[in-house]
């Protein structure tokens, strides 16, 4: 059995989780997911400012604090915090000077093929991570691998799975899917939260067996809960058809069996089949500039108040690119001011940065010249660039998935 924990479900998750997971109980591997479609855009904008950035900086600070203990206890660290710059993150981890054997996975960055995109990253699988661990790495950082690969890679390396051990790979993928959002598996964001203590859920752990089956659990004494219901909730997160496509295996979610276990939930029975010949690519392009504000409309004549301010703003800057939503949150004859109020949201999305800025000025200039009771929840800013996401697909064979081992050797995966 291999015991794999998770300490992050997104860039910005609980900073102390790495420490909590190392101190809270036994682990063989500690993983962390830092990447989402939106995160790639944020990192892309970091990289525009400084080409040495583009990775999740909180991860480096977490290692500053905890890597010595992980090394001492023999817990391997595997994370996609490398983002758009896994090599840069690997160098930064080296510079911590703790003598850790650091490896990284690369080849996901396809900007050359999609020059119009700010970020273009193929979702790589688990085999690069497995190569790094088999070579003795203490820390493996990657760019855009699938979230579940952070769990599948260590399990595959530990058990020596082959590329066609479909059921084992699918079982570990399901365990990885449960772990990838951290505390969403242990009672965070859980519909039946009133039935558990959801104050401070512990992060999840998967104890994976040689056949890919697993027990989902968490360290003793941590909050939250691991039940068939909390695990079901996370299995349903961000999925489509029951045949869940991945770069290494298709995992059939309609074959998953969940059973209560005395320390959590046992997952078994998962069937896998060969993956598609293409890899998915996450593309982010800059779409233009956006700005928004929310007018508070209180009391009587809500529709007429909304009509007036809408007419005024459109007269000032034109009606193009504006999206209006009137949320009728007001109650008649209300006994608090807040519950007497409706909210009128307006957003501008425009290719023209000047127009996004003019939106603010026009909104503010209405302050003494609009509907009675005019105020806004927060004044609009100068406008910010926004990204447009789309997926593309490229032949698997066209992507050079590489593992760079601790001694610098490059292995084509």
């Amino acid at each position, binding site marked *: 059995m291999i015991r794999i924990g998770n300490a992050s479900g997104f860039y910005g998750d609980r900073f102390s989780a790495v420490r909590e997971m190392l101190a809270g109980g036994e682990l063989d591997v500690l993983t962390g997911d830092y990447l989402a*479609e*939106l995160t790639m*855009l944020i990192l892309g904008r970091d990289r525009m400012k400084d080409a040495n950035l583009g990775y999740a900086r909180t991860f480096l600070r977490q290692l500053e604090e905890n890597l010595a203990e992980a090394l001492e206890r023999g817990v391997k660290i595997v994370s996609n915090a490398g983002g758009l710059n896994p090599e840069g993150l690997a160098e930064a981890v080296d510079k911590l000077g703790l003598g850790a054997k650091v490896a990284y996975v690369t080849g996901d960055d396809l900007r050359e093929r999609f020059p119009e995109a700010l970020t273009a990253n193929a979702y790589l699988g688990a085999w690069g991570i497995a190569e790094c661990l088999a070579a003795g790495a203490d820390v493996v950082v990657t760019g855009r691998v699938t979230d579940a690969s952070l769990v599948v890679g260590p399990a595959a390396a530990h058990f020596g799975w082959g590329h066609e051990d479909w059921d084992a790979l699918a079982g570990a993928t399901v365990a990885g899917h449960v772990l990838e959002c951290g505390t*969403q598996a242990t009672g965070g*964001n*859980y*519909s*039946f939260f009133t039935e558990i203590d959801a104050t401070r859920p512990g992060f999840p752990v998967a104890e994976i067996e040689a056949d890919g089956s697993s027990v989902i659990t968490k360290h003793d004494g941590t909050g939250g809960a691991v039940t068939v*219901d909390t695990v*079901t*909730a*996370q*299995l*349903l*997160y*961000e*999925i*489509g*058809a*029951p045949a869940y496509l991945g770069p290494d295996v298709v995992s059939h*979610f*309609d*074959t*998953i*069996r*969940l059973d209560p276990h005395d320390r959590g939930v046992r997952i078994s029975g998962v069937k896998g089949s060969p993956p598609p010949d293409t890899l998915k690519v996450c593309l*982010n392009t800059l*779409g233009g500039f*956006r700005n*928004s504000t929310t007018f508070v409309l209180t009391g009587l004549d809500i529709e007429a108040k909304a009509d007036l301010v809408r007419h005024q703003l459109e007269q000032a800057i034109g009606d193009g690119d504006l*999206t209006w*939503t009137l*949320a009728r949150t007001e109650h008649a004859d209300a006994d608090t001011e807040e519950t007497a109020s409706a909210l009128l*949201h307006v*957003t501008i*999305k425009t290719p023209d940065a000047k127009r996004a800025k003019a939106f603010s000025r026009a909104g503010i200039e209405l302050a003494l010249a609009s509907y009675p009771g005019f105020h806004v929840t927060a004044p609009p800013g100068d406008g910010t660039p*926004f*990204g*447009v*996401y*789309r*997926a593309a697909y490229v032949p698997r064979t066209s992507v050079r998935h590489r593992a760079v081992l601790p001694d610098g050797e490059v292995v084509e995966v």
Partner: protein
Amino acid sequence: MRPVSKRVSPKKVPLRRIPLGTIAGARSGDKGGDANLGVWVRTDAQYEWLRGELTVERVKELLPEAGEVDRYELPNLKALNFVLHGLLGDGVASSTRFDPQAKALGEWLRSRHVEIPEALL
């Protein structure tokens, strides 16, 4: 609005008009411009009812903001998964939707009132 009271179906099964979330959990999220919405219940009898009740058409009635919807059955998890195409436009960073990552779509569905057989409560 139909009254919130005990009702009797043509088959004489006593029904109560109450929130779906009385018996069903849900979790929702984003995949690019699409939202996914998983709904699950805790007993086999509840699941038999759920898969009859929550058709694509019914989900569109309960969530009138939905456009094209795909439905998948996961009987092993006593769950249905819905993909709501295009709900989020060009994705979270671009969407002007109130909840641009569809995080609370599931809680909205759970709050909708449906007629649930009393025997399932």
